[in-house]
């Protein structure tokens, strides 16, 4: 029996990044879904029920990527959903912005910086999905 395709939801407001990820992920055999803002992301989360989440810290509302992560972590139905933070922002900067807003950073599984390194990203995804 053929294994069902794993679903990955990408949340990023940069269409070019989304396109790059679409090519990388579909060619690696994953089912690709995307959302361009945090509200759409939360809707898609319930609709698609992805196996893995790739989040950017979206710029219009600087910490909305973290908000999505927080939503996921507070919802028991999505318990254990792996999250990759993929952003051009340095980790320290992101965390500082969050702290400035008085928020505690939600736990994410992997923190990766852009530019995207396809091989590295796919390796991380594989490891997270096999866990």
């Amino acid at each position, binding site marked *: 029996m053929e294994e069902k395709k794993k679903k990955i939801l990408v949340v990023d407001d940069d269409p*070019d990044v989304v396109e*790059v990820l679409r090519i990388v992920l579909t060619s690696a055999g994953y089912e690709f879904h995307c959302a361009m803002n945090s509200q759409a992301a939360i809707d898609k989360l319930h609709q698609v029920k992805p196996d893995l989440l790739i989040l950017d810290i979206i*710029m219009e509302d600087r910490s909305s990527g973290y908000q999505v992560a927080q939503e996921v972590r507070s919802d028991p139905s999505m318990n254990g959903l792996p999250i990759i933070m993929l952003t*051009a922002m340095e980790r320290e900067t992101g965390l500082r912005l969050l702290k400035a807003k008085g928020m505690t950073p939600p736990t994410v599984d992997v923190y990766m910086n*852009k*530019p995207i*390194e*396809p*091989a590295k990203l796919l390796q991380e995804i594989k490891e997270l999905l096999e866990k």
Partner: protein
Amino acid sequence: MNQDAQAERRQPSITERELCERLAWFIELRWFAAAGVLVMFLVSRYFLDIHFPSVPIFCIVAAMLCYNMAFQLYSVRTRPCETVNLRDIEIFANVQISVDLVVLTVLIHFSGGLENPFAVFYMFHMIIASILLPRRDCYLQATIASVLLNGLALLEYTGALRHVPLEGFLPLDLYNRGLFVLSECSAYTLTFFLTIYMATSITERLRAREKEIERTNLELMSIHEARSEVMRKIHHELRAPLAAIQSCLKLMLDGYTGELTEAQRDMVERAERRTRGLLDLVADLLELSRLRRELPRREMQLVNLTRILETEIADAELLAKEKGITLRRSIEPLFVMGDAKDLQRLFSNLIGNAIKYTPSGGTVTVRGKLARGKVTVEVEDTGIGIPEEERELIFEEFYRTKEAKSMEVVGTGLGLAIAKRVVESHQGEISVRSKPGEGSTFIVTLPASEEG
């Protein structure tokens, strides 16, 4: 106490801290004053043959020792200065000064009254009060001093209080001359108030200026904070599109969009390389603002500096070869405590610069040696050199020498600024020796560390 005042207390101004620290000093000085009184008494009596009653003098010295002990005990409570209310400290200082003035008056009474030249000692308190205390407290002390001195003179003049003459020092009938007493008293009184007036005029202005400086400082800090925030935003705005471009190019190079022809691959590789360069520049800018803001640094570790230098030289070799420059090295085993990433950046900048600004056929030499607990790394080139008047300026951000600009070599003017910050954050020094047209040598010294 309301919260504002509490918040204020936690940040005492320079004057307030000075006052608090001086309290202990007053007490210390008073031990010497007590000893001084005793010595003066003995000297007057046995060497100068001036006689005045000894019992009151001993009593006064004993009293000084007693109340100073009390002050000492009390002052333990005023430490540390940050936790004490400023007004409490001021009141304590006022009390000390007033008690001193009273005791001084008693002492003067038993040692000749106005005849005693040491009556000028009142002035010490006037001066110290003017420097440390608010103006109204100073006038209070001047008034107390005047009342005490004039009161003493009046009582002794009228005979209400028996005058104790300094036998053998001055004619004994001075107190019979009203004019003498009057002029002495008015001279003292005037001097007290004039001193307070003059000294406080100056210190008040100084205090106002100090407050203004503190305020300006706070303003500057908030401007700096805001600017850093803007810088961070700019960094992100630059970085995000560059990262997107880089991601697209990597995708092509990794074959996701089909096989590339050799010519296509070459072009994409070039584009990728330049984008990486730009990303590096943005990272450098971020790094510089990190170093400038003195954010909590990364942890210092034992770093094998020799390995870093060898790696950087190996990286630079290709570029040197392309330009026809000989790259020489002589490096001893060197270890320092530091941030490997920062040190790498430092020497990659210095070696890169040396190659960049040395014409074809030249030589770049990297020397590393250990001497007297210090690591010295020299990067010497036979390049364009740096004119003397520009030697300090090259470490400024974005500064590039005229000569460097005219060489049309790409440069951001940030490398040496970062280098300097890195060296400073490692408690080291960086300097340059140069002869225009013949070459430059950059010298970095860092505190050495033992291996392992």
